[in-house]
């Protein structure tokens, strides 16, 4: 373990796969496509297995970064290649590895043009995502964070729907605008801290007045990424126009980059600013939950409906994060993982019928349950998970978030709960319109049920949603220690503000007692 840089191998293996495809360029078109698919499948599969091995070796008791690797990158500027995982990043790391694997499978036969480029884009994307979640150096983090835009832009723009160019441009420029401001904040922090090391920056305390600016700069980046209402307008376009696998990765992982950023940076580094802005975040989250659910209710396009639902679900995540309560934050992490699985599954569900009928209009369907029973079962299951039915992972996340919020703000809890009801409304109504009713449309009569490859994609998603719903401890214990560390640090900074000498030991003890240790 100590000798092998397992984490770096996991991060850069997909890039190697992309390189293999690149070097194969120039062969015959057909064999090239088949080659690219298999290379991508094997690379992402091995990467996923490596990620699981990392999980196996992960020690959940410690809140520290694990599998740390530090190499000199730009020694002149004190910028290093520093990676590591803790309980906050590992769940998302695993999620990324899983979803890219599924994305490759999903696009197996539905993508027929420029296949090598497509597979390369996904593999490069995987490296960026894994690197982003494990980067422990600000510059490295930013490189991966913004680098994600490149493959995603191409995926939407080349293989997307009819309005793909507009969507790709909007996606790229909107998110770029958000992230460049955080670049300036990062550089400022670099000068304050003296290096771009994230663990060092996390324990540095910043002047409260500066914190406000830095917090806002990071907010610009993460609020667009997650996205919070009213910065979400790029999302419906991008999700709708992206190919199925693109939507899967967008909804499944890219949205989590924002949530991850809030937990990793905003809360521990800028505690004063975070608590100052909590009312703002709460308000925006509540608006997102209620308003976006209502908007989802009015959609005619299946993908758009799921896209708006995603914004609403992300409202729960931001709500949970900014309670800065262990239940709320663990709930937020759980909700991110759960939404990653469920929304990915729902987008694949849409992709399945889109591949067959090439329409995403809800009105074009109806009565599918008669011809596609296996599909109907899976779709039903994921719809229920999206609503947050007890026994699915969606329930655990939303319930914990509400529990955490209730300790901070009961009004917000009440309002957020209405979002769950609305969620049931739009999800079940969607299901009713697509699946139930008489099978009258002639074009639907000949639709075939899921093939073995599609079953293969749905099975791991369904199993993990169900297992995490019944037994969420793997994720919760994984995150526990790191979340507690963040919360303690946050409380410490707020209580210990001013000139008072803080008795660190004692506060920690109190915090632990409070948590029932």
């Amino acid at each position: 373990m100590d000798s092998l840089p397992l984490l770096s191998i996991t991060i850069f293996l997909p890039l190697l796969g992309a390189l293999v495809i690149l070097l194969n360029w120039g062969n015959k078109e057909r064999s090239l496509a088949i080659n690219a698919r298999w290379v991508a499948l094997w690379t992402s599969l091995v990467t996923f297995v490596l990620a699981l091995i990392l999980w196996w070796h992960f020690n959940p008791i410690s809140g520290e970064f694990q599998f740390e690797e530090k190499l000199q990158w730009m020694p002149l500027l004190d910028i290093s290649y520093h990676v590591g995982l803790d309980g906050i990043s590992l769940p998302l790391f695993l999620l990324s590895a899983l979803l890219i694997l599924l994305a490759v499978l999903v696009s197996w036969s539905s993508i027929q043009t420029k296949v090598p480029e497509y597979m390369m884009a996904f593999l490069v994307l995987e490296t960026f995502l894994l690197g982003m979640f494990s980067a422990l150096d600000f510059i490295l983090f930013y490189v991966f964070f913004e680098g994600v835009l490149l493959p995603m832009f191409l995926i939407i723009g080349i293989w997307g729907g009819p309005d793909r160019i507009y969507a790709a441009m909007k996606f790229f420029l909107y998110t770029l605008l958000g992230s460049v401001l955080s670049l300036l904040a990062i550089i400022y922090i670099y000068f304050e801290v003296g290096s771009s090391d994230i663990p060092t920056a996390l324990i540095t305390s910043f002047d409260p007045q500066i914190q406000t600016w830095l917090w806002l700069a990071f907010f610009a980046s993460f609020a667009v990424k997650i996205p919070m209402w009213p910065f979400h307008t790029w999302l419906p376009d991008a999700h709708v126009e992206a190919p199925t696998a693109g939507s899967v990765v967008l909804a499944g992982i890219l949205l989590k980059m924002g949530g991850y950023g809030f937990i990793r940076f905003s809360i521990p580094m800028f505690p004063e600013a975070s608590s100052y802005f909590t009312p703002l975040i709460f308000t925006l989250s509540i608006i997102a939950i209620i308003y976006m659910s209502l908007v989802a209710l009015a959609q005619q396009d299946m993908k758009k409906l799921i896209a708006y639902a995603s914004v609403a679900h992300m409202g729960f995540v931001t709500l949970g994060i900014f309670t800065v309560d262990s239940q709320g934050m663990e709930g937020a992490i759980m909700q991110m993982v759960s939404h990653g699985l469920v929304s990915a599954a729902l987008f694949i569900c849409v992709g399945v019928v889109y591949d067959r009928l090439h329409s995403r209009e809800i009105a074009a369907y109806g009565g599918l349950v008669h011809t596609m029973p296996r599909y109907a079962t899976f779709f039903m299951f994921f719809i229920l998970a999206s609503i947050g039915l007890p026994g699915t992972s969606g329930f655990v996340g939303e319930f914990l978030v509400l529990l955490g919020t209730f300790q901070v703000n009961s009004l917000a809890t009440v309002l957020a709960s209405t979002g769950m009801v609305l969620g049931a409304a739009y999800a079940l109504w969607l299901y009713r319109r697509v699946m139930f009713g008489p099978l009258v449309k002639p074009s639907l009569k000949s639709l075939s049920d899921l093939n073995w490859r599609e079953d293969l994609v749905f099975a791991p998603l369904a199993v993990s949603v169900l297992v995490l719903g019944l037994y969420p401890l793997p994720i919760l214990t994984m995150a526990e220690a790191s979340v507690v560390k963040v919360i303690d640090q946050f409380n410490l900074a707020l209580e210990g503000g001013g000139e008072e000498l803080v008795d660190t030991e004692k506060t920690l003890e109190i915090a632990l007692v409070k948590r029932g240790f």
Partner: protein
Amino acid sequence: MTSFYWPDFTLILPEMILVFSALLILMEGAFLKQVSFRHSVHCGTLALGLSLGLCLFQFETGQTWVTFEGQIKQDDFIFFAKILVLAGATATLSMSLPSMIKENLSRVEYPPLVLFATLGMLLMVEANDFLILFIGLEMQGLSLYVLAALHREHLRVSEAALKYFILGAFATGLFLYGISLIYGFSGATNFEVIASVIRTESINALPLGLFVGLVFVMAALAFKVSAVPFHMWTPDVYEGCPTPITAFIGGVPKVAAMVVFLRLLLSPFILLYGEWYSLIIFLSMASMVVGAFAALRQTNLKRLLGYSAIGQMGYVLMGVAAGNSEGAQAVFVYLTLYLVMFIGTFACLLSLKGKTPEGVQDIEDLKGIATLHPKLSFILAVFMFSLAGIPPLGGFFAKLYVFKAAIAAELFWLAIVGVLTSVVAAYYYLKIVKAMYFDDLPETPAPSHGQLLVLSAEITVVLNICAAIILLFFMFPNVVLEMAQRAAFALRI
């Protein structure tokens, strides 16, 4: 009076190689009955490459030499600049051959002109005296005007060349006027003497004329680097000149002028930082904004690249505005990477046939070529993303260092304007990627649409080297960073 001594000619060996080979090529052209254009271009490239090798050999000695009665200086800063200039000139001259022949521009005077222009730029960067600087500036300027007008029977080309000449001559006038003011109020043209004059007097006691002279010199140099509001000639010249010549005019001379800008401000005039930095901030901001917004609606590719160059120079000026060694370092990294991206982009354009004999002109000419030439489009897309400053490509790091220098100097607003305009500018770089990858081939394409020119080995080599530098910069940033640090160290700020 000092007694006469023999100047150290070994220090100007690269320049002498250029002079003699340029003269030889000219002689050949004048006296030999049959001289192939190919042969003279190859000779010119060889001469440039040879002097590049010499400069690389001299770099990193950490020493400073002053020769020719204190008129010429050589240190790591200057060697780095000379390496950039010579590398850029070698690359552009070597890759221009096929399209020069195709556009009927195979005149023997072309390679000597490039050599003389390069020689002028070398003189500019190594000058330790305003007079030598002026001679260098004029030498490169006049050669470039002739180069721009090489296609003299072509109306648009003549227009571009005339604009270039008139505005350039205007800048020269400003420059001379500035020098004469500086000379009048400090009593010297030598940089070191001027620096010591400024050092001995307190800033308030310095005569106003010196500042006025400095502003004139800065305005003239702003012309040369095409900073707003002295940028008017750039889009016209970029569009009007034949593409291989644009590749030369647009890249290397700007690097040379920017290095001179940096050296002047940071070496003799650093004590006046409080006086000049606000001017540079203005030039930088205005260039970034104009470069970003004016290019949005361009459909002509070369014109768009002209505006892009204006914007990019704004970022370089941000490093100058920082006024510290960090800024100087950032400027060098930026210039290096910019030159690579610029030459790489033009290498891509030069390898394609366009609608007309002039080659690729409009963004439309690139429509859907990704299906025809995946590798070439990939490389061009890499350059576009890099120019837009998207990580992990080299262009991002160039911007990162510049922003870092600006924030270290507490120029927050400049940095904020910089990042915001970089988002605006990203749009038009993306437009080119969009044309190649997202658009389909036109229904009734021109017969030569998306067809490759007969590629010479040189273009392929240049293209691959440039792409490799930009793609792999993130793996080996230290090579360039350390060189830039040595160069900045030689300034002794």
